[in-house]
């Protein structure tokens, strides 16, 4: 029948988490057409155990991507539309008094989902933003003195519109660092756009998607990703990139060690997506702009992604 069916069939036939991963990738690509690279990066972020920031203008498929991921991954999904009056408790949850039990009962907020879509994150106040970002960093929330662990796997997809800055609170550089990858979707090419225009409604398609992976699969895949070989030569390359970012004359603040860890983890995840047990410099290069783009602080008014690309092109590979 249609591609979804084919993908679902492939998923049901697949035996190993890796095979199911490929099926999941194919399924998301069928819904979010013509966005192979961003979709792959989104999966890399998931497998590397990081969170994803999607930055682009409205209407290019940010939310569709998040929905398709949620449906395909078989994770519990919640969406929070960030607004300026959103409070931290709207995310984390509140304790309410239960008269029957004569005690406070915790009403869990949307953050206790496995996949959380934080839509237009820059519209909320910094206080609310930091509630989310702290939870992302610590994988737990503390309400009324009690710490509560978040669901596992926990994957945040946040979106923000970089152009419409009126009434927004742009994420400070230190908070941007919480996101492992930042991607842009960009306009589709002509062929993909034609498929969008002639094909079925995306929400219908998303509604028909079947889960290809389970939470356990994802945890297992994350385990596999961590086991990917990073040879001394590759670590040399990563370190050269890091030190080059700290010496580059157009960069005020280079990449932190945490950025280096993120780069390595993302490169390993990319190698896993490429069905390899070892990471190549090409894996590092593929994820570099998405990892470093939002972490580099330029010395002048230079586009950050272009700076990351220039940095990448300035470092030789063995």
């Amino acid at each position, binding site marked *: 029948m249609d591609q979804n069916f084919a993908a679902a069939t492939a998923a049901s036939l697949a035996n190993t988490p890796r095979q199911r991963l490929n099926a999941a990738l194919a399924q998301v690509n069928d819904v979010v057409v013509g966005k192979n690279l961003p979709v792959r990066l989104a999966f890399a972020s998931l497998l590397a155990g990081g969170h994803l920031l999607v930055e682009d203008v409205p209407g290019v498929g940010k939310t569709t991507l998040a929905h398709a991921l949620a449906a395909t991954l078989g994770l519990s999904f919640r969406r929070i539309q960030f607004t300026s009056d959103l409070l931290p408790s709207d995310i984390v949850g509140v304790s309410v008094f239960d008269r029957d039990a004569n005690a406070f009962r915790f009403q869990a907020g949307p953050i206790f989902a496995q996949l959380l879509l934080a839509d237009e994150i820059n519209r909320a106040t910094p206080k609310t933003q930091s509630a989310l970002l702290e939870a992302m960093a610590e994988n737990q929330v503390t309400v009324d003195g009690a710490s509560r662990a978040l669901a596992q796997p926990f994957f945040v997809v946040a979106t923000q519109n970089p152009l419409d800055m009126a009434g927004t609170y742009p994420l400070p550089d230190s908070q941007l660092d919480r996101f492992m990858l930042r991607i842009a979707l960009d306009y589709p090419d002509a062929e993909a756009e034609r498929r969008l225009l002639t094909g079925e409604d995306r929400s219908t398609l998303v509604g028909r998607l079947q889960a290809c992976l389970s939470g356990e699969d994802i945890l297992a895949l994350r385990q596999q990703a961590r086991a990917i070989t990073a040879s001394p030569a590759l670590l040399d390359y990563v370190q050269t990139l890091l030190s080059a970012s700290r010496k580059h004359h157009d960069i005020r603040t280079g990449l932190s060690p945490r950025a280096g860890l993120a780069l390595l983890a993302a490169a390993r995840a990319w190698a896993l997506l*490429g069905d390899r047990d070892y990471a*190549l410099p*090409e894996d590092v290069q*593929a994820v570099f702009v998405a990892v470093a783009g939002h972490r580099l602080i330029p010395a002048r008014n230079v586009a950050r992604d272009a700076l990351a690309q220039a940095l990448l092109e300035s470092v030789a590979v063995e």
Partner: protein
Amino acid sequence: MKQRRTRESGAPPVATMDARAFTLLSLTVLCAIVAHAAHLPVWYIAPLAAIIVARWWRRRRRRGRVSGWSRAAMLLATALAVFAKYQTPFGPDPGAAIVCGLLVLKLLESETVRDARMAVGFSCFTLMTVLLFDQALVMTLVVGLMLLPALATLRALEPGLPESGWLAAFRPGSALLLASLPLTLLGFLLIPRLATPLWGSPNQGMARSGISDRMAPGDLHSLLNDNSVAMRVGFDGEPPAADQRYFRGMVLWRFDGREWTPGFAARRPGPDAPLAQRGDLVRYQVTLLPSHQHWLFALDVPIAAPRDAQLGPDRTLLASKPVDQTLRYNVTSAVDYRLHPDRLPPGLRRWALELPAGYDPRARALAKDWRAKAGNDDAAVIRDALTLFHTGGFVYALDVPPLGRNSIDDFLFNTRTGFCEHYASAFTFLMRAAGIPARVVVGYQGGYWNNVAHYLLVRQSNAHAWTEVWLQGRGWVRIDPTAVVSTIEMADAGGDNGAPIGGSIGGWWLPWQNRMDIINRWWSQSIINFDALSQSHLFRPFGVNRTDAQTLGIALAIVMFLGLGIGALLASLKPREKPRDALAAAQLRLQKRLARAGVVRGHAEGPGDYYERSARAMPSAAPMLRALSTEYLLLRYAHSEPPPERVRDFVRQVRRLRPSRVL
């Protein structure tokens, strides 16, 4: 299912300039055009500049070449304008005009990076042609600075450079210019000189010559307004007193009622006028700027001719060929002298008294009147004449009303306004009419004495005319009738030369210019006139007395080799990166082979990407290359320590690979 960024090995699409590169290119072209503003008409330069700005403005909104019709129209307009102004496409000025027009046309059609590179080259050529017109220090510096936008444009055209600030765009070019200075100096000192400059166009500058050999009322006017340097004079001892700085150019004998010319008397063969010198001689060196005339100037009166010149019968100097390049000569003059003191030959006497018939009856009558009163006393007649100029309501001014047919009468009795040539002309006429032999001398008078560098700066505006009268027992005596005129109407007496005459409307900056002339003098003496002779002096300290092109070439080669050797030595002292192990060495060898075959690895290209690209470029070797690539990636990146036997195997396989050349 590998997915990588694909790299195209085919031809890249035609790259167009970005907005920044285009702005820099427009600036480059504008600079080249503006540098020509000094010698091209404003009505030509201004529209060109406007077109550049308009093109720049338009391209900010919409990219694309200007339509072919507009360009054709502009080409036609350029041709018409040049023809209308010069009537010929040949020569420096029309040539410069054409080059400027074509350069702007090039900008109109510049869209791609290739266009831009050509336009930059063309701009540099256009800029260089400015030096055909003006080699002064200021212009040379301006041309050098105007190279900066050109270099910045070239830099901005390079792909893959991060955006930088506007000031930073000029930094690499500035560094490059500075770094090229030593090489420039080397070439300047050692490249063999031609006898004449490469671009020594013979007719250039004809329009702006100095003093001419005839003098009609108003002839000197344009000269007196010209503040360009005529010559510089350095004295061996103290300079002569300010009132003795009369530089003799030529002697005019013949008057036809309107115009003074040398006449036959000045060209007579025959013996030199006898000279009795008294007092000390003045020795000095004159640096005469190109006048395109034959005569040289010397302090009243030279006692011998310098090399390549001869002494005329009236103690004037004549060069054997026109002074088309700056000329330096040494002269000795006697400031205190008696010229022709004893007896004036009858022939000369006749010439010195000759007046055209039927002109200026009132002046003649006045002179007769004086003679009748004075009797035999020539000095009294001279006194009368000078008194007339001093008290007769005469005015020294550069704005002179036109004179009628009887120009002397008109001047003496009606206008009473004039400058040196009017006074010299009228005074000489009066003397002759009164029976005193007299003649006009034209040259320079005064000048600015530079007390720091000890030289006298003489400008064209110091051009002057005076009279010599012959007195029994005294010989030819210089009398400067202009000096006695009491009323001076001038905007500003140029320079502080101590004499109220000869100067011109200089402007407030002239004193400053006079002082700054030291630098110009150094530039023209040491740089512009650095010729084969100066070059040979360079080698004297090294015991080389004869310097020909061959010696210079050898010296140049030695210095270049030394420079290259030192550079190579410094480069070799820097530790070279050694391959970390046998695997890396083998892959370097493989890369070298592939590069020789035509596939060069990009600086930051990943190994897998590179071998895949090579495999696509050389299908015959593709299976082998892909196998090598896989093996290399496994050895290097899947192992923390590659197994030695597999590395040896890889090295062997690399040795066996002989990729054929990619076309």
